[in-house]
């Protein structure tokens, strides 16, 4: 660690990892509800709200922690305003806790009433279920984050990694404005909702992910020039494909049919950034000598592009071609793709940067027990997630076939029972994943406990 303000990453990562465990716990609760094991007082939609909302929130905590570590070092400059970074951590955490408690303890309609949704309706849309006032708070946190990062970079060295990270962060903050737009016309509301959701998950977050990956590869190989050259290609391909790639969300929501052609075409191209990331990591890591003795880090860093290529790239590509999406849209296949894509790109990159930074932040580089726990957790999580996705994808194919593709299509609810075996297997996968998270957490906090101050 070269700058003291980099230590701000530590509380951010701690919060991120804690929320990760809660998120997966609620995922497990949802998985159990699929096999009719219910917990009294927790409705499916409540558990799902917490599962999806916490996913976004803990990944944001992870990105913030990563940025507060990377940016000062790259800029060769202390963080512009460390106090603001700590304050926004507390604000963001408070907002998160209020939101989760609101979901858990109140009926959603009551939560909407008491937060004044009727005056400025933005709630009740997928991923944007938070009360309007909470959304304002999140926007404030994002603005403070962007301000802090841009001022640090402005006063310091401007590397490609830093500028890319800033582009991703500023872009995420700007498109968040669309969280506040909810037309009374459903089609228009859906159209602009994607300007936030698509550009976050497939655009600005992808830029942040690429910057973090590049930073790790640079740290492992020590070769900035090669990393930057690859980064240019990857980013250029990302930017050219992602913007019109939004078309693959527009097939069936009421907008003109030409979006099917545009969406399909650019979905094919959206595979390219992941392909180049794969080439990049394996070319660069193979052709230079690795400095790092951190085995867990190597595992995360090398498998992120492989898994991202499969989960976000190939699976996304298959599912977003209009003729296939006509059948697969809004089924378990969507869920399968969503799970693997989020895990392989964003979860893995955040865990990779934590794997790199925590030993440095803790002054006990590469503790052997922590390494072993982390590697075990990696395998448990990655393998169980892959199987979970396989099971849900098979369930989705069955669902499409029985409910949509035959002449004697059966109603949704009638066929769910015939997929029960797959839901059980998926639930088992979820349980193994949760065990993986617990082992990861034990390693993480054991590492914190070991800290030499």
């Amino acid at each position, binding site marked *: 660690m070269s700058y003291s303000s980099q230590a701000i990453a530590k509380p951010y990562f701690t919060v991120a990892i804690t929320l990760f465990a809660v998120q997966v716990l609620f995922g497990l609760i949802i998985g159990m509800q699929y096999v009719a094991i219910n917990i009294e007082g927790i*409705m499916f939609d409540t558990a799902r709200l917490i599962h999806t909302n916490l996913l976004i929130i803990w990944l944001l905590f992870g990105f913030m922690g990563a940025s507060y570590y990377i940016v000062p070092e790259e800029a060769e400059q202390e963080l512009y305003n460390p106090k603001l970074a700590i304050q926004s951590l507390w604000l963001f955490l408070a907002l998160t806790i209020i939101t989760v408690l609101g979901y858990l303890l109140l009926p959603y309609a009551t939560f909407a009433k008491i937060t004044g949704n009727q005056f400025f309706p933005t709630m*009740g*849309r997928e991923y944007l279920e938070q009360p309007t006032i909470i959304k304002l708070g999140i926007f404030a946190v994002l603005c403070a984050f962007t301000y802090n990062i841009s001022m640090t970079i402005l006063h310091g060295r401007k590397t490609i990694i830093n500028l890319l990270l800033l582009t991703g962060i500023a872009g995420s903050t700007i498109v968040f404005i669309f969280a506040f737009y909810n037309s009374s016309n459903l089609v228009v509301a859906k159209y602009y909702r994607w300007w936030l959701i698509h550009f976050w998950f497939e655009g600005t977050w992808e830029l942040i992910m690429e910057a973090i990956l590049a930073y790790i590869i640079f740290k492992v190989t020590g070769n900035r020039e090669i990393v930057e050259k690859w980064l240019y290609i990857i980013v250029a391909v990302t930017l050219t494909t992602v913007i019109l790639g939004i078309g693959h969300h527009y097939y069936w929501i009421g907008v003109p049919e030409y979006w099917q052609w545009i969406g399909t075409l650019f979905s094919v191209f959206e595979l390219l950034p992941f392909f180049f990331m794969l080439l990049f990591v394996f070319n660069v890591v193979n052709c230079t000598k690795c400095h790092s003795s951190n085995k867990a880090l190597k595992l995360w860093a090398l498998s992120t592009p492989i898994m991202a290529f499969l989960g976000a790239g190939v699976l996304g590509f298959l599912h977003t071609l209009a003729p296939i999406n006509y059948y697969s849209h*809004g089924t378990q296949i969507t869920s399968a793709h969503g799970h693997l894509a989020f895990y392989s790109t964003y979860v893995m990159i955040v865990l990779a940067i934590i794997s790199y930074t925590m030993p440095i932040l803790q002054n006990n580089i590469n503790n052997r027990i922590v390494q072993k726990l982390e590697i075990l957790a990696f395998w448990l999580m990655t393998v169980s997630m892959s199987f979970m996705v396989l099971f849900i994808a098979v369930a989705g194919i069955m669902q499409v076939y029985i409910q949509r593709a035959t002449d004697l299509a059966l109603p949704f609810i009638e066929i769910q029972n015939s997929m029960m075996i797959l839901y059980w297997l998926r639930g088992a996968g979820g349980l193994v994943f949760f065990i993986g998270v617990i082992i990861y957490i034990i390693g993480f906090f054991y590492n914190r406990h070991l800290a030499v101050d």
Partner: protein
Amino acid sequence: MKILTKPKYIYYSSLIIFICLLLGLTIHTIIVLPERDHRDNLTPQIIQGKMVWEENNCIGCHTLLGEGAYFAPELGNIYKRRGGSHGGAYFIKAWLKAMPTNIPGRRQMPQFNLTDEELHALIAFLKWTSEINTSSWPPSEKG
């Protein structure tokens, strides 16, 4: 620095070109959209119905035009599926009032205790939604 100038040029120009393309397509979409979403039919009741839909987090279990959760059936075409002008409204109202069914082994929908005004608004919203031109999606009437 020679290497940097050329990619930077590609970086910015591609960004601008594709943003302009997206804005152009959006303008065109917005112009032709009224024919497809039949917004002339939007009434205050339908708008209230959308609010009822959102404030009860219906997408927490259902999908609407394929977006939402996959735990309960697609509702974009529920009005038509349940009889359209011949009983669709009646069915949805009776269904919502009958929840939960308490049939063992079947997923349960909660009782939302909607007022008659809210129920009628929600039904009007679902009817309007079922009439959106969605390029003949879903593939089957079952959703």
